[in-house]
């Protein structure tokens, strides 16, 4: 089992709002992202992920300002994703205060983007974001927040991302996302076995026990959580206590 399992609240953003969908769709407005982010930071989040869920679709990104404000009061690593298409977009994100960027759509369109970005900014700040949907015995990569199939095989794609220089994989199961029914452990384990870079598992967290099952069985290094926190089903201390009781190393 990897050391220091990270618990990372994932904030899906649409315009000025924090939103949450199911299977990355049918989104519901939950409130101001600033308030949620501040609370999660204070409760002991290890990092935060900000994801603009409509950026790719409309070709824009609203997060720069939000990240800039977050830096004034949140002193943990911040990852920003959604609609980052060019080297200058990444530069802008880092200048706004992001420590890492998550890239999906543009990486599928031009895989060399990952290579160029990691060469310029370092692997440690390039997160390969993958939206995976089960298809028979395998998984297919999707883009534009789970809307567009690509025909790309997830297990091959994550390995390619690693070879191109991605420093981490953010792996979202579109099937489980927003359902609170637990993770696609099969997918998470296959990806964690395939790559040697850290994997952040996203999609399905509905209870601390499900997160513990995932960690015990899959080999992922971090968990992205949303509904479980946004809807107050559990808390960051609640999740960490559960993991700690099960001998998973977390930052308390």
């Amino acid at each position, binding site marked *: 089992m990897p050391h*220091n399992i990270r618990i990372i609240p994932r904030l899906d953003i649409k315009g000025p709002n924090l939103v949450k969908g199911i299977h990355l769709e049918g989104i519901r407005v939950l409130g101001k992202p600033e308030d949620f982010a501040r609370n999660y930071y204070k409760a*002991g989040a290890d990092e935060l992920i900000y994801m603009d869920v409509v950026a790719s679709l409309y070709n824009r990104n609203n997060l720069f300002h939000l990240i800039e404000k977050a830096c004034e009061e949140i*002193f*943990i690593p911040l990852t920003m994703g959604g609609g980052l298409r060019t080297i200058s977009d990444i530069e802008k994100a880092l200048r706004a205060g992001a420590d890492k960027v998550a890239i999906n759509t543009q990486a599928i369109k031009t895989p060399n983007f990952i290579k160029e970005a990691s060469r310029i900014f*370092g692997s*440690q700040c390039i997160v390969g974001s993958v939206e995976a949907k089960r298809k028979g015995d395998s998984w297919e990569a999707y883009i534009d927040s789970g809307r567009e199939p690509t025909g790309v095989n997830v297990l091959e794609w994550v390995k390619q991302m690693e070879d191109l220089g991605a*420093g981490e994989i953010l792996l979202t199961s579109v099937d489980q996302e927003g359902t609170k029914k637990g993770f696609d452990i099969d997918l998470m384990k296959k990806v964690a076995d395939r790559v*040697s870079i850290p994997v952040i598992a996203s999609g399905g967290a509905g209870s601390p026990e499900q997160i513990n099952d995932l960690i015990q069985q899959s080999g992922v290094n971090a968990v992205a959580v949303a509904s479980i926190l946004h809807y107050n089903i559990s808390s960051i201390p609640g999740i960490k206590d559960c993991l700690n009781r099960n001998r998973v190393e977390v*930052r308390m």
Partner: protein
Amino acid sequence: MKKKRISVIDYDIGNVKSILRALEKVGAEPVLSREDKEILSSDAAVFPGVGAFSVGMENLRRYDLIDTIYRFVETGKPFLGICLGMQILMEESEEFVLTKGMGLLKGRVVRLIVEKSCDEKIPHVGWNKIEEPEEKRWKGTIFNSIKNPSSVYFVHSFMAQPSDPADILSTTVYGGNAFCSAVNRGNIYGCQFHPEKSAVTGLRILNDFVGLIK
């Protein structure tokens, strides 16, 4: 009480926004500067940096900051190097090509060593623990108010190896080996990790750094 003015040395190397905000958070007045007079007249200085050692040294030379830093350190006022800023305090680095550093502390910078039996990667990215090398070593230092051990946030591939063990302020275990994660000699401090990304622990460290100002 008047706010303590802290120069954050500006040599175009990485994002300094978080360190500026974190210093504000602990009640100081940070100023991003590469001006000789500004830096020398401030109450303390922070020397940040992310990226390659040789690029860092090149930029310091380009902005004529090397002599400014030597003179600042001589004043005895608190000085804190962070990440690359800590590594540059050493005599030399073997990153890509052997590059001379500032030599404020004796020793060199080498690539992190990860034992083959461990499945840990380079770069070392994430939260890890810093430990006190001997009892009372942290008393009166920037680690005065934190617990031993404490978790902080790292992003790096190289590590400093001080030749004098007395300069080691903390150690961290990674990949089956302990490395030096912070240094201190007199008014000179260096952290391999990022206090500005290390939540409450990091803010306590910065608060203690500000508290060193006489």
